[in-house]
């Protein structure tokens, strides 16, 4: 059977709503655990207010945060999935974005970067972003939306092989401290770190690591998994908690993704996915049925593949 643009539109509209309103379980559990251990009393107050906020959002069906971020999509197409038109798929994603912006409502954040003009629907030149990947032996299409807010908390640095892990730690500390003060990054955050690739891949990997992997997930390389743990602990030892108040709740989890890079360099990016870590995924099966979840399952073994095949 063929998946139609109508299926895509239905699924995309639904995940736009879910992402904006319902905090993913993995992140919620992470924040609950931090609220239990946070000793800074103002930071603990903030975390408990956030837990109230998630409940209010779900009960009232209203967005958890009014900055509904920049809605965007990640599409994973099964190798055996059949779709009559890929252009129609993209058009369906745009339509769902405009409709959800009006209906939820989402804040129409998208404006022209120079003229600041807007269409009140979160659409525009090169927006929303749609990123593509493929999956062998599958006949479904997965669509994930991420509503990432936050003008603060993301940075890029070209490091060099000689900088080593120390250089990454230095950069991570600089970023968390700079954007953590006054809570500009709306921490505690899921921190995504991209290491390697070219500059743009490095940014992309870090962003995907923050937004498309769930709290508790570990990189399959055990050495990298150890670093993820170490960096999380490092962030939580700064002495800073939610809103930049004295405390220990900075990093809910840390995810690292790597890509082969130029022999002379070690580009690194840091991204923070905020207290409104909004993501939702729909799987459109070949018979047109749709199932929903909050784990994007974006980084499959095929996605991280090495070698020729």
């Amino acid at each position, binding site marked *: 059977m063929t998946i139609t643009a109508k299926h895509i539109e239905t699924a995309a509209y639904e995940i736009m709503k879910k992402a904006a309103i319902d905090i993913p379980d993995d992140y919620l559990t992470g924040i*609950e655990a931090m*609220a*239990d251990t946070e000793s800074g*009393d*103002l930071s*603990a*107050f*903030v*975390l*408990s*207010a*956030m*837990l*109230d*906020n998630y409940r*209010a*959002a779900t009960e*009232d069906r*209203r*967005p*958890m*945060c*009014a*900055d509904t971020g920049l809605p965007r999509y990640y599409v994973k197409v099964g190798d055996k999935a059949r779709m009559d038109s890929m252009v129609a798929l993209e058009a369906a994603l745009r339509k769902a974005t405009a409709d959800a912006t009006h*209906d*939820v*409502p*989402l*804040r*129409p*954040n998208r*404006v022209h970067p120079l003229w600041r003009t*807007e269409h*009140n629907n979160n659409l525009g030149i090169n927006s929303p972003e749609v990123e593509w990947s493929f999956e062998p032996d599958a006949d479904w299409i997965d669509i994930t939306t991420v509503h990432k*807010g936050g003008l*603060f908390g993301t940075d890029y*640095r*070209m490091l*060099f092989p000689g*900088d*080593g892990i*120390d*250089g990454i730690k*230095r950069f991570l*500390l600089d970023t968390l401290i700079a954007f953590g*003060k*006054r*809570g*500009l990054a*709306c921490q505690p955050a899921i921190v995504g770190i991209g290491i390697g690739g070219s500059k743009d891949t490095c940014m992309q990997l870090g962003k995907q690591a923050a937004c498309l992997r769930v709290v508790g997930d570990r990189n399959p390389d055990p050495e990298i998994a150890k670093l993820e743990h170490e960096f999380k602990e490092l962030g939580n030892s*700064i*002495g800073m908690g*939610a*809103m*930049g*108040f*004295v405390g220990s709740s900075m990093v809910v989890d840390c995810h690292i993704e790597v890509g082969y890079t130029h022999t002379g360099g070690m580009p690194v990016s840091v991204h923070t996915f*905020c*207290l*409104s870590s909004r993501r939702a995924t729909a799987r459109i099966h070949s018979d047109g049925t749709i199932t929903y979840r909050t784990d994007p399952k974006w980084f499959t073994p095929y996605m991280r593949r090495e070698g020729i095949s």
Partner: protein
Amino acid sequence: MTTAPTRKTHHLTIPVKASDIAMLKPGDIVYLEGVVYTAREGVYDRVLEKQQPLPVSGQSGSDLFDISNVNFHCSPAAAILDDGSYKIGGVTATASFRFSKWMERWLDLTNTKIVIGKGGMPKEDYTNILAPRGAVYLTTVGYGTGALLGRGVTSVKDVFWLDDLGIAQAMWMFNVKAFGPFIVDSDIAGNSLFAEHNAAIAENISALYDGLKPPALSRYGETDNRKDEVM
């Protein structure tokens, strides 16, 4: 789950009286009832830079700043329904430091006494601008408490310059009830909660870098001197 320690909590009615404001201490919690207005760069630019007159409130034609002395640095997730009414979903503050340069003239023009936003403003602004005018700064919590704050907005009283400035930048007047929580950042003595916490945290920062080797390449930003080489 452990419940957060209870903090001193104030329920204030807008327009907020000077005697109420005098009671607020950094770290206290505040809930508001009455009318708050929103203003961010689009509004300041229009009124303070382009010298356009302030709007007057709808039917009564009264000066809206008689109704509200609470300025919220916010843009709502709002939609205009087919019948012309408004649907307010979430309400979240935006970072206030960007509006710092307008605050002095704005407070004088409007007699605003409470500024609400995200992240506070520099302590010097409290000392030099807010405190001398009997004004305080409250910060939103989280900052993503958009749903809780959205619940506190009972209706839209008015909206100005929606066509020119768009939903995000327009000047909204919200009727609010049990609107909060907010945390008091600055008091009328000009103290700042954020500044106190930053200072406490700063004591530990250099120790975090102990033992890390120096970077292979410096960068502008670590030095202010653009004549320096970065190698």
